[in-house]
């Protein structure tokens, strides 16, 4: 932790000048190819720090050149170091001495610019040629492009800068090495891969969920994750469970011996994640980026002991699950007569059963510190089964990519529903797809969060022009509470707010019955003031 280096067999994220990310696994003694940007030996990155920027050397030479931060910044600004120094200077304004009546300052515009595809004299074959033999990791090519552009003098400084930047992005053979963390993985999956597989969860959504669910070191968390393991990795990162130094994926023989030892060691009771999954096996494929493969788990990885998985059948109806049926006991004497293979199969079966039943028992006992849900499945049913497993005051967050399902869920915990449940008992809300007892969730809230990016350049600061659309997921948050037995009624004078109607069933009366669950239409501060 105190020394951050690129270690062998870790996954890295290489960001190209165009902003496109590439995920590669750093295996020593290989060539990493970045397509048209060239290739370099993986050893050149080994044991070097993260977040540095490198140029890929031109073909005869092989290797990388470390680019200083100053140079990176200069190229990002499009060679605009001078404009940067000017600070607030308006680059588009220039002093035109002749036109004195205008006050000497004239806005240079694109009035005279003519669109002409022929203004670039280099043909694409020439560009290809240059690309092959060009020097300076593509910088040479950019320079040639600028030189051979006939209308370059007509461009305003801003346009010129933009042009340079565009060409730089296209031809510069440069990349930045970033660590593959939950943050960068999310960005990568959202922008380049299939975002639907991670339910189009954005970084700000994940961050908000982790905070609202009070995820911190030492807690026990119940997770329902259908995003391929992204939510699990996010929680694991906050629990410090992703710190692992990967080794060469060999020693398959040794693994067997270690696996035998594993169930006997006491499993940790704190700082754990319990995952409930809908299929027989969990889909945690994204954990491979953090060197953990659920199909072939590394026993030394912290997740091996701190992550438990069980499926819905094992939770809801454990008696119906075959894997939870106790395997036949064979006396030791009989066992001794078995052949080696058969005997080890027997023990393996036994161990698996022991492990599964222990996990199921542990989860069913409940007492979790928080619940995090990101699912395609209906949230109501999930919460119906999961919320009772939480301890009092535990936080609940649930995410769906469709706001409708979250809103439907929030409605299930409305004041009216709670009142109905209290008055009429279980038969009211007890349909199969409901949430069950609504009174065990306090203050249901629906959060919507979005980060807006800005471009910061001297004199040209504004929000970026385009951003990702797609699903606008929202987060449901609530608190698990322990309601008292018997009838409860809220007290206090709520009637001063609005003149009451004869109608005994309007909104005000609901507030009277149960002021807590209702969305308050007026500012709560006003109420506090009137109250104290």
């Amino acid at each position, binding site marked *: 932790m105190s020394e951050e280096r690129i270690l062998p067999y870790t996954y890295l994220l290489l960001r190209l000048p165009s902003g496109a990310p590439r995920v590669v696994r750093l295996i*020593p003694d*290989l060539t990493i190819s970045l397509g048209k940007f060239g290739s370099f030996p993986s050893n050149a990155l080994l044991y070097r720090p993260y*977040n540095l920027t490198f140029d890929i050397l031109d073909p005869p030479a092989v290797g*990388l050149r470390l680019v200083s931060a100053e140079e990176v910044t200069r190229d990002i600004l499009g060679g605009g170091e001078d404009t940067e120094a000017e600070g607030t200077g308006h680059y588009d304004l220039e002093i035109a001495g002749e036109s004195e009546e205008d006050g000497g300052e004239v806005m240079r515009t694109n009035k005279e610019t003519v669109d002409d595809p022929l203004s670039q004299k280099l043909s694409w074959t020439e560009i290809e040629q240059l690309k092959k033999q060009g020097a300076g990791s593509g910088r040479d090519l950019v320079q040639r492009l600028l030189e051979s552009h006939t209308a370059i003098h007509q461009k305003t400084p801003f346009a010129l800068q933009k042009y340079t930047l565009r060409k730089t992005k296209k031809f510069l053979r440069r990349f930045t090495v970033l660590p593959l963390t939950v943050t960068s993985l999310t960005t990568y999956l959202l922008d380049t891969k299939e975002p639907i597989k991670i339910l189009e969860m954005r970084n700000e959504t994940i961050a908000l969920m*982790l905070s609202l669910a009070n995820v911190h070191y030492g807690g026990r968390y119940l997770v329902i994750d259908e995003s391929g393991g992204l939510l699990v990795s996010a929680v694991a990162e906050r629990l410090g469970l992703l710190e692992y130094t990967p080794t060469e994926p060999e020693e398959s023989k040794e693994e067997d011996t270690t696996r035998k030892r594993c169930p006997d060691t006491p499993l940790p009771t704190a700082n754990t994640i319990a995952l409930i999954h809908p299929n027989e096996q969990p889909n945690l494929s994204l954990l491979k980026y953090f060197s953990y493969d659920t199909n072939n788990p590394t026993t030394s990885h912290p997740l091996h002991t701190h992550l438990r998985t069980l499926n819905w059948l094992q939770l809801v109806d454990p008696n119906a699950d075959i894997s939870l049926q106790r395997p036949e006991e064979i006396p030791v004497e009989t066992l001794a007569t078995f052949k080696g293979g058969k005997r080890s199969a027997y023990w393996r079966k036994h161990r698996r059963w022991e492990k599964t039943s222990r996990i199921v028992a542990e989860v069913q006992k409940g007492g979790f510190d928080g619940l995090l849900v990101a699912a395609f499945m209906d949230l109501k049913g999930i919460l119906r089964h999961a919320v009772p497993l939480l301890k009092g005051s535990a936080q609940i967050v649930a995410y769906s990519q469709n706001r409708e399902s979250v809103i439907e869920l929030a409605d299930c915990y409305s004041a009216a529903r709670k009142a*109905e449940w209290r008055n009429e008992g279980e038969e009211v809300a007890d349909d199969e797809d409901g949430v069950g007892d609504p009174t065990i969730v306090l203050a249901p809230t629906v959060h919507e969060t979005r*980060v807006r990016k800005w*471009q910061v350049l001297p004199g040209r600061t504004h929000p970026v022009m385009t951003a990702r659309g797609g699903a606008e997921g929202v987060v449901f948050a609530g608190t698990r509470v322990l309601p008292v037995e018997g009838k409860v009624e809220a007290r206090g004078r709520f009637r001063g707010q609005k003149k009451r109607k004869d109608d005994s069933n309007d909104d005000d009366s609901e507030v009277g019955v149960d002021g807590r669950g209702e969305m308050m239409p007026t500012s709560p501060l006003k109420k506090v003031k009137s109250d104290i």
Partner: protein
Amino acid sequence: MSEKSEPDMAPTSKPLPPLSAFLHTPESIPYSSSPSIIHLKRDLLVPLSFQSNDTEGPETHDARAAAYSSKGVLNTRFGDFPHSSIVGIPYGSQVRAAPATNNEQNRKRKRKEDAGGAATAEPVSSGFLHVLAPTAELWTASLPHRTQVVYTPDSSFILHKLQVRPGSVLIEAGAGSGSFTHAGARAVYNGYPDGRSGVGKEEGRRGKVFSFEFHKERVQKLTDEIGRHGLDGLVEIVHRDVCKAGFLLKRKADELEEERDVSPGATAVFLDLPAPWLALPHLTRQTCPTPSLPTSTGLTPSPSPGPSASAEKIGESTATVTAIIPLQDLLDPSSSAKVSIKTEDGTITILDDKVSNETFDSAKPSALSSTETVRICTFSPCIEQVTRTVSVLRKLGWVDIEMVEVQHRRVEVRRQNPKGYEDGAGPRTVGEAVQRLKWVGEYREHKRERDMADTTSTRQNPTEAWKTQNSREKKGAKDGKIVTRIEPEIKSHTSYLVFAVLPREWTAEDEAAAQALVNQTTKGVVNAPVDGDLKGNGKLRWGGEKEEKLLSKRQIKKAERGKRKAEERRVKAEEAMEDESAPAANEEVGEDIPSADDGNDDMEVDG
């Protein structure tokens, strides 16, 4: 509101204090100085700590809580709750109000109600509240505001982007009300440094928050709060103006020794300051503070002329981040670092004479972790602050500079009345409107006829008739369409967040060491990253023939093994009917092909 010190936060002679309720929820609500959060109703939260009866006077932490609590009883408009009825039950419990007592609050309320009239006749029903375990979010929502608070949507995103994890060291400047301090402490927590209750890892660094604040009163209150919340040891509050004095900690190794400057070794920095660019020069990689930020005029509010030296510009000859070194180091021949200072007039402007004296103490360490990437976030409401900050960050060698704002809204969910009737609204469809107008016309006609005939036969009033036909009454909680709206008041702008990354310093020696390590551990296809200065590490070439052969043998073996494994895995997968997105092993090159989903030949075998 008493400020006396608590027995819980007594010095080390006593047994170690309990774990913070913020980090480990106790089984039941204890008598403690640490607050519980009383949830009266939505958005009305009060932090309150419960004191046993033998302690004189209840301990309340702010005026609002004091208004509620008197003599061991919590008085709210939802009823009175003696502390004894709350303590001892589990967190998250709903608590019913005690029968009304004849205390002053109730008497006052009664008088008011009497004046109000009829409402007093209503029998007193039992109100309730919920007692919740404290979390950073609940604390943010209920804390006594001393300054503008960093709210959860912002703080969560900041901590996520700064990659604050258990074991991180976080610097926070401008602690303010302590909202972000609590969130930060939770994020870095991986056990107490004093090993309290044996929680936490055996080895490795313990996470810590260093919180700087220049307002004396706020520092006192915050220190008191942190102590009461059991976060001492995880959070260190320092009273200082970081723009002037930097981030180094004053520590004494022992009683005799003089105070030394110790680096906090930060891996993440959060600056909530009015002028973050003034604090940035204290956050560089160099082993000495560099407050002599070369600025174009206007960047610093009142730069007093300090010692000036003409800057020597030596291009990008080092692989290191551009650094600004004070004069003395320039003259020091042993200093290997190169200097590249660009100011308009070629002079270094020093902010303050006092500071400039400090710069000559070259023994000062950097406040940042020397071997890790450092991430920074500044939090400023104005765009002018952002442009200045970004400009200085760029000068100081920070990369990946990004500016965002977080837009957060809460969505309110409710049910409409059946058919979408809102209170007092008229017809909902054109058809209804037409029908109603027809009725009105008919009724008027009818009324005229009746007046003329003067009969007693009555026909229903159209409004009444319409109401009986179109009942607006809700039949149950599931009646009516679900509608949403945004909360009545949104925080449309909190602040702009500037993020930046400072990679670790990478010198020629580091590069040589890394290269040596590579040579040791790999099979020999070795090429170093080369840089202007780092050249001479040998010609750039692939490994010799021998290595290649060796490699290819290994490749064959690996490929075979990979095939076997893939076979096994496939069988396993079929049995388990596992998910489609499990990585499919590549048969040709086995595990040397990264199983990344983007397997578009990102890597290929050499040779």
